[in-house]
Every structure is written in C-alpha cells, then in structure tokens.
C-alpha cells in the first residue's frame, strides 16, 4: 500500500474547509435553508426532480453553507412542486409550480445572490413543520 501523505499544520485548515458541509449540517447553522415540500402531492407533482436539481447545483457550485431539507405538504397542493428559501433573520419565500430549471434559476439568483425571483414566488411568509 502506498504511503499516505503526512499532514502539515496548514493541511488541517484545508481539511476543515473541505468538510465544512459536514459541520454545517450537523450544527444546523447554515447561512440559508432550502426546503423542498415533499408531501404525497409534492412527490406526485415531481418534487423528486426538484430535489435532484437542487442537490446537483449545490455540488456543482461547491456550496456548503446551505441546508437542504424536506417538509410535508404546505396545503397548496395544486401549486406543487414547491420549495421555500429561508435566510437567517428574514421571512421565508415560497416558490410554486417548480420545474428543475426554475429551481436551478432560483438557486443561482436567490440562494447564491440573495435576490428573490418574483416570477416564481408565491408569497413571503412562514410556516412551521411541527
């Protein structure tokens, strides 16, 4: 077996940077949170593809400080698939009638740059999971 590269002090910080996603998710303190609504209605309307697109964008853009979560039906089943984008200290924004492409756009605009995408947004407001 090939000898593994020995670490230097500066390597510790590099490992920490690489594993930031891990600490973010377990400490539950992301910069932002995206919730894909995955009730029965959401799944039937294609929430799965929305989730795939979102995770793909995250990976591609090497975003590590955004928490991705799922939730149940938001009560507006005819506008599914839906997703909610939430920034710390700001009211959450709900997006409706999503497609993977719309999700990618929302990710680029809202999650990365902080600009709400009014074309796909339903409303600003909150809901609780529990």
């Amino acid at each position: 077996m090939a000898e593994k590269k020995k670490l230097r002090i500066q390597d510790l910080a590099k490992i920490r940077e690489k594993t930031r996603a891990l600490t973010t998710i377990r400490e539950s303190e992301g910069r932002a949170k995206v919730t894909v609504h995955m009730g029965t209605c959401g799944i039937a309307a294609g929430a799965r593809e929305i989730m795939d697109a979102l995770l793909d964008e995250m990976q591609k853009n090497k975003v590590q400080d955004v928490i991705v979560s799922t939730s149940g039906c938001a009560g507006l089943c005819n506008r599914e698939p839906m997703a909610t984008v939430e920034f710390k200290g700001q009211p959450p924004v709900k997006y409706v009638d999503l497609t993977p492409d719309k999700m990618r756009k929302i990710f680029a605009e809202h999650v990365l740059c902080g600009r709400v995408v009014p074309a796909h947004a339903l409303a600003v407001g909150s809901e609780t999971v529990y």
Partner: protein
Amino acid sequence: MKQYRAHLLVCAGTGCVSCGAFKIKEALEKEIQKRKLQDEVLVIATGCNGFCERGPILMVHPDGVFYQQLKVGDVPFLVEEHLLKGRPVKKLMYIPPEEKEPIPKMKDIEFFKHQRLIVLRNRGRIDPEKVEEYIAFDGYEAMGKALAEMTPEKIIAEITASGLRGRGGAGFPTGKKWAAGRAAKGSPKYLICNGDEGDPGAFMDRSVLEADPHAVLEGMVIGAKAVGAEKGFIYIRHEYPLALKRVVIAIEQARDNGLLGEDILGTGFNFDLEIVEGAGAFVSGEETALIASVEGRIGMPRQRPPYPAQKGLWGKPTVINNVETWATVPNIILRGAKWFSGLGTKTSKGTKIFSLVGKINNTGLVEVPMGISLKDVIYGIGGGIPGGRDFKSIQIGGPSGGCIPAKMLDLPVDYESLTEAGAMMGSGGMIVMDDKTCMVDIAKYFLNFLRDESCGKCVSCREGTQRMWEIVKKITEGKGTERDLVVLEDVARTCKDASLCGLGQTAANPVLSTLQYFRHEYEAHILDKRCPAGVCTALIRYVVVAEKCTGCLACKTACPTQAIKGTLKDVHLIEQAKCIKCGACQEACRFEAIEAQREEAIQVI
C-alpha cells in the same frame, strides 16, 4: 467531500449497541438504498449520545430531530415519512415521563438542555472511526498550536492556570503533575493514559474513548511536548472491546496522517503510543498499581513517594492522567485557560462527566459544570425518581464513594464539598437510590465488591474489607448486635488510616457514610430486627393483603418456585416454606396486594 442533504447519526456506544444499534443502522442503509436516497442521505455511527436509557438512538440532521427506542420495524416508516416526505415521526420521539407531547429536537430535551459539553463535545456528532470528521470539528488544531507556537513551559503554565484537576478520582492539579514530570531527571520519560475504569455502573472513560478517541490522542501529544516524553501508553480494560477497537483505529489513522509517530505535523516532534490491555482489576486504576501492570507484573500499588512523575514506569519519570483529563487538554489549549477557569467553582474548574444510574428516570452519561447542585443533576437532568417515589440517597464516587442523604440535595458537586460530605468525586459514578433501597444492604454490596478487589498487600484493607463485609452481612441477616456497630466503625477507621493506596483508604466510605447518615437503619436491623426498606430477605416475608388481592393469578405466574396457591378470583396465599423471597410477585402485582412484612419468627428471638 460529497454533499448530502441529511445526515443520520446512529448512536453506537456500548449501551445502544447492546440494544441493537448496528441492526438499526443496517436497516436504515437498506431502506435508504431501496428508496434510492443513498446519494442524498448519509448514515453514520457515532459514539455514545449519553441518553442510554432511551437507546437505540438516532439523530437526524440538519433538523436536529431526536428519535429513541427504535426497533428495526420502525425504520421503513421513519425513512418514508421523515426523509421522503419530510414529516418527522412523532411516535418515535421522546416523551418526558408524565407528559403527553413529544419533544422533537434534542436541544429542547431536559436531559440535554442543562449539560455543558466540552469533553463530550463530539459525542453523537462525529464518526469516531474517521479522523477527517474529528478534524472537521477543530480536531488536532490545539495540537498544531502547542507543537508550533508554544514552549513546554508555556503549555504547562496554561494548564496550571486553567485549574484543571485530575478527573480520575483524587483531583490532583494536572499542571503541577506535568511540571513535576518535566522537572524530573531521567530519560526516556513516559506518558500513560489511565483507562482502567472499574467501578460498577460507571462508563465515563469508556464513552470518551468510544465517542472521541482522537481527543485523547491529541491531549497526550500536547502533554508529551510539555513533559518531554516520546512514548506513551493507553491502558484500557480488556472488557471494553468497542473502546479498544476505536482507539486502535484512531492510532492507526493518526499515524498514517502524520499526527502521531515521527515528525508530527512536520514540526519535528516525535511521540508514539502503544495500547496495553488491562485484565480488569479495580486496584489497577491506582497509578502505581497500573504502572506495575503495564510492566507485566501483578497490579499492586507501592509506597509513594517517589511519585510516578519522579520514578514511574521502569523507574523513569512517568505522567499518568485519566482518559477524561487527557481529553480535556485540547479544549484548554485551543480556547485558553481563562475560558476554562471561567467554568465551575473556586477550586474545581471546568466540567465533569458523570454516569447517572440507579433509580432515576433518565439513565445516562452527563457532562455538567462543576459546582452544579445535586438537585439539578437528579431532578433537572435526571428527570427525578421513577414511579414518583421518594429520593433517599445518592452514592457518588464509585464503590468506595459515599452515600449522600436527601437532606443534602443542595450540595454543590465539586471535589471539596463531596469529600467533606463523606463521598468523593472519584471518577464520576452517581448511583441514585429511592426509598425502597436499604442502606445497610447497599453497604454490603459495595463491601462485597471491595473485598474481592482488594489486592491483599495491606492487612488493614485485605482483612478490613472482609471483616466489614462479614459484620454488615450479619446485620442484614438480623443477627447483629450493638457491639457490632462499634467494631465496624473501628475496623472502618483503621482501614482508612492504615492502608497504602486509594482503594484501602476509601474502602470504608460506604460504611462510614451510611453510618453517619443512616445509622437509624442499622439500628432498626439490630434492635428491632426489621429492614425499614423491606429489602433484606432474612428480615421480611411476603404476604398477600386479602383486601387488595383480586385473584388475577399474575403473582402465581411470576413465582419461580410455585410458592403461591390460589385460583382465579380467589385471594391467593404465599406458602412461606417454598418462598425464596425474590420479590417477583410484588413486581408482578398491579394492585399493591403483596407486602413485604417483618419476619415474625425473628422478632420473637
């Protein structure tokens, strides 16, 4: 590193493993495969979460939802609901005793809320078998700092200023010990990690080793630089297979990554570790006995001084610290002595881990700031006594600790207060007892353990523990006399004063503290031939209370010796000649129709 949207952290401490944690993990992985979520959801095994009462335990992140007492059959539903549909499953959440609503998040549960995690900061948070995860949470940063930026003197000064005291029992200031090791002449110098945790009902060190083995390694490398040692030993009980396995993996990974061995982190510092397996003798927790055991001799203590810091392993300067002490060190180096000494009391700084067991609702492992009151531990974190019974006493400090009575519930938990009250910090075992516990019986139990574990070197301990046990046993059988109490106290004081090591010196604690606080119970056994708690079998007999008995046959079914006569809906009768007084009938009865009464025959004598 691959990104996942959810992490499932299965507790894989010994407690949860023994109730099926690995089967839960397997089922989770299978179900996640089946649902094609394997690229989104990561399942890992962590060290002990602490809430052992409720195992197997699963934490779901990022939500922070706490699931408990899982069964393999719950897994498909949980995965479908929580991970596929995003609906946390209420019925698998924790419901506090005597409440109806579940608490979804770990941080809101009383048991976790009042704890302050420093040594256990990574418990239930990282995979202890992956060094990257330890590094992700600031692991080995303190070591880097100590090796690159600090002189040995500065490290010792920092530890001294922090006020850290040995977590293994006696509470000797760690900085002072290191300074003595540094000043001692002789080479090579050695470090030892004392993981010989032998107290019944205590599992602090085991959990630290299982949940965060790298923290111990990191602490030892820092200590090595301070003391000037190049070689260290980790002494672990053979009975801790999981802890052993994880330490072996940790050492391998640390070596592979240049975190242990030669030229650590490229700083030119060398230090390596070796594991020594202990055969499980309680006395080997004593440092000179432990050294003897590492050297391959019988674990027996010797006269001090010279202290191990001067003449230890193979006659060379040796610094021995307990697992918890070593694991505390990186926190102090990283966050500073001032931060650490800001926690705790005037003489006892920082936090301490306790294993909370016995008659308590929330059995488990807790880390609390020093100086917290017993009441906060028992009623706040521990959730009180099951079945609404009364709290009677808490036994602190392992078998040779002492029993503290209910009236002293406001006692702060620190080294001095506990010793003054007749108990001791010990390594941190806390055994809670309710009003159905007989204190004489408890003293007998611990004396039985100690007479077994006494190494036999000192007469006062070898004979003392044996005689104390015999006398207390006699008392529990209703054959004690008033004279026995005088002899008992005398033997106890001799054992305390004349024994060489900590075992003998504290072996009398169970007797002395129960005599001090519960003398009336001894007297009831001797004078009235009565066991007030109804525990000592020679002094009680079980009878059916005719007015309460519904004739349900539950006791009859439970009785292992067929001593109970009766038919359905008729009052039952216990045949005393056949009864072995095991109490199974009393436990089985739902109508409190079985009473432990005073044994009449003995009363006549």
